[in-house]
């Protein structure tokens, strides 16, 4: 399943090592995640669902969906798509008997579901008391996913307290740009990303970028990632923390865990949130079957780790992501059976669609996926035509042969940290979902917390970089760095960004941005006052 030849990406594999999966040796290469190593070895069922023990494979490959949780070296509930292999590592599936691949408890799925639908553990068998007590005990028997560790974790954790001017969360184009522009004014910056590399989504983009010439159009995404991360590396006042997951914002204090072992308490005067976005999923029968993946998950597997997701795929969604993914798959020698699109027309740019058509991939508009077919993994899919009222047209079902399905229906902003910090949020469909209110410099309603990139609204790398620069500069300016020159530069980027959005594709974005931009002096509410505002119905 490993790719050896690729026209654009050169896969430099690390040393060959052995890991153990449910006791069996599996070949792996240093530098790859446990999930990719297992997948390359043909293992597709990664876990069983919590209640009905349905088989689950990986979906997102970025630690967001929880369907890849396993026990690693005795520690339960580890998302193996975010853990890198080590020689001799022992990996076990959990919540299944005897293992995730053939789990006897999966009968729960076929039998119990009918009598015991979701949520009913509060509702059913409540009377008489004897029965209730019995059921309460039984519920507990099936509860829990991981096994409690047999012995205590031996490695010692450590702790570091850091004081800095600006903390940047997320090392994609948005976060890197914020860090670079802030650091150039002399501000001290801590840049954190959960991956062992910088670049965010860009590391998966093997294609040449669209966008204006001034903003690196024509350059491949992976190359932009390289340029930016080199620049980050050259600036001595940026402290980069790799494999560092930020889990909370506590009133000017950033809580993070570095390399699973070290707790970081970062006191920052300003914070820039550039956490990007994650894949949305779609409701259809069997949408949790191993082999149904997010587009980003497939890109990660293929373009970052050089592993084939399968032999023949079905792509759901014809936006740019779906179209680009299609030709990235073909590039890697993987067949694409078809693209289905619920809308009556193709969503993405014409150039991408034309390219896909040339490759001979059929695009079914006004179609959707009805169900995934297969027992333990995808063996095919059923698609169906939609009429103008978005209702299925009876009799139009069609079977597509494929061994994986990619859901590419869009991204949602990774907004959790902002929400937790008390930033005022708004649901704006044009921007992809729940996004924070912000000033034209990206500052949210919580003073000192900025946003940049996809987390502020799903857009593109070009605008993410510009938003990053603006946020980084403004944060530095407010701290007294950079002087007139920084102010001039910030205002120039603000103008550039406006101009960029006035292009043909910016209309929707602009209308979204309008809904969430506020003038700071007008409504500068801090977190506690915000509660008041909501309770008074002002919102």
């Amino acid at each position: 399943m490993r790719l050896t030849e690729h026209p654009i990406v050169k896969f430099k594999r690390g040393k060959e090592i052995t890991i153990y999966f449910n006791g069996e040796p599996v070949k792996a290469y240093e530098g790859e995640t446990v999930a990719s190593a297992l997948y390359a070895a043909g293992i597709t069922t990664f876990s069983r669902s919590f209640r009905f023990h349905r088989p689950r494979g990986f979906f997102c490959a970025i630690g967001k969906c929880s369907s890849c949780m396993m026990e690693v070296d005795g520690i339960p509930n580890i998302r193996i798509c975010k853990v890198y292999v080590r020689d001799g590592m022992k990996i076990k599936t959990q919540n299944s008997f005897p293992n995730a691949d053939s789990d006897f408890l999966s009968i729960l799925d076929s039998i119990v579901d009918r009598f015991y639908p979701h949520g009913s553990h509060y509702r059913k068998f409540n009377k008489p008391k004897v029965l209730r007590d019995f059921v309460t005990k039984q519920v507990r028997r099936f509860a829990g996913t991981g096994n409690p560790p047999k012995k205590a974790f031996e490695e010692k954790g450590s702790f570091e307290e850091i004081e800095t001017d600006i903390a940047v969360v997320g090392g994609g184009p948005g976060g890197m740009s914020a860090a670079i522009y802030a650091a150039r004014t002399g501000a001290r910056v801590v840049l954190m990303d959960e991956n062992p590399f910088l670049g965010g989504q860009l590391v998966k983009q093997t294609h040449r970028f669209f966008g204006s010439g001034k903003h690196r159009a024509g350059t491949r995404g992976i190359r932009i990632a390289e340029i930016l991360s080199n620049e980050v590396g050259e600036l001595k006042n940026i402290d980069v923390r790799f494999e560092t997951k930020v889990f909370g914002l506590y009133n000017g204090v950033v809580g993070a865990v570095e390399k699973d072992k070290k707790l970081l308490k970062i006191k920052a005067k300003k914070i820039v949130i550039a956490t990007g976005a994650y894949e949305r999923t779609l409701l259809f029968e069997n949408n949790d079957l191993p082999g149904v993946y997010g587009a980003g998950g497939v890109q990660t597997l293929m373009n970052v780790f050089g592993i084939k997701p399968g032999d023949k795929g079905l792509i759901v969604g014809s936006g740019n992501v779906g179209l680009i993914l299609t030709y990235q798959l073909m590039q890697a020698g993987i067949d694409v059976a078809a693209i289905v699109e619920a809308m009556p027309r193709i969503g993405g740019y014409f150039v991408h669609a034309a390219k896909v058509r040339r490759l001979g991939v059929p695009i079914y508009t006004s179609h959707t996926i009805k169900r995934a077919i297969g027992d333990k993994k995808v063996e095919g899919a059923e698609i169906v035509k939609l009429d103008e009222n978005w209702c299925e047209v009876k009799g139009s079902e069609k079977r597509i042969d494929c061994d994986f399905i990619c859901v590419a229906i869009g991204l949602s902003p990774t907004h959790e940290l902002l929400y937790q910090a008390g930033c005022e949020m708004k649901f704006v469909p044009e921007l992809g979902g729940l996004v924070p209110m912000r000033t034209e410099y990206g500052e949210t309603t919580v003073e000192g917390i900025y946003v940049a990139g996809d987390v502020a609204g799903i857009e593109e790398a070009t605008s993410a970089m510009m938003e990053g620069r603006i946020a980084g500069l403004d944060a530095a300016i407010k701290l007294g760095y950079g002087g007139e020159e920084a102010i001039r530069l910030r205002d120039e980027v603000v103008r550039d960004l406006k101009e960029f959005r006035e292009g043909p594709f910016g209309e929707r974005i602009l209308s979204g941005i309008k809904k969430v931009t506020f003038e700071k002096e007008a409504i500068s509410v801090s977190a506690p006052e915000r509660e008041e505002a909501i309770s008074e119905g002002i919102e």
Partner: protein
Amino acid sequence: MKVAVIGSGITGLSTAHNLAKQGVEVVIFEKKTYLYGASGRNSGGITTMMDRKELIELAKRSIKIYDDIQGEFSFNFLFRKDGYLKVADGFDMGRLEKECRLQRSMGVKVREIDPFEIREIVPGFNPESVDGGFIGEGGVIFPWPVIWGYVEGCRKLGVEIMRNSEVKGFEVENGELKGVKVKDETIKVDFVINASGAWSVLISKLAGVELRNRIIKEEICVIESLKPFIDPYILNISTGVYISQSARGEVVGGVVGREATEPDTSSTLDFLIGYAKGAAEMIPLLKGLSVLRQWAGVYDASPDGLPVVGETELKGFVQANGLGRRGMSLAPAIGEIVAKIVLKGKEYDEFSPSRFQFPERTTEN
């Protein structure tokens, strides 16, 4: 007769339920929504292992009510009576021994347990972390279905529950309460029950009544789901760290709260650090596991540790608060008491708000 209850926490709901059962017209005003208060944020530890006679009686009665009422409502509270374990270091063992004598004298089943025996009940418990403990009646309840159940029960009896309806003031005439101000409206009522938990001092101030409850903020978190291995609810009275495992297998734990100046429910990193240390010291197997989520809640505690229940100097204004960190164990019984006060004019000196105005009557803990 019309009664307004402030707060849709367990205290307000059980009060409303008891009043409505007697045919009283009841309206509950809730400034946010169900589960917003401590009743939706607590750890669900239920026990009769208390340090005061009055509390033990209330807890016993409450457990009985939970058992009966679950069949009445269509919700299973997932009340698991696998025991309540209090542990302590040498310095605090005396306190536990003393309360144990009281508990036994009142028929509570409780026994001393040594740290090595605890390890047989709770795999992985570190016997070195404590000097001793007592295990007795109790266990864990899931607070959410309790609240959902009471809401359903109240509704069936015709109680009106108004969410997003903050009480902003009162109408008072000649030292008598006449109405409640909610959303620019004044609603005429005969009684107001102040069951607003951590906000009860603020509400009392609005009514011009003195209440000396303290606001306590407590933080709590859950660790990702594991196969059940912790049966009893464990509370270390020396460190304040407590741990239990929910019906879903999530390990729920926190540190007993501290006084705060205002009802603030923000989470802190320092709590996580402190709890992680305390929990890993007590059950080292928890080291290396991931925290799934954290949150905080606020409740109110009275100066002498007993609830504050009874009519105040302002006629018609009734306190039902100060339940402390034991509200889940006490509130079902408190609801019955409030109903008796309102309907029968009964007086409970031990809980009466006026007890604090006579210092010589204040009992020491």
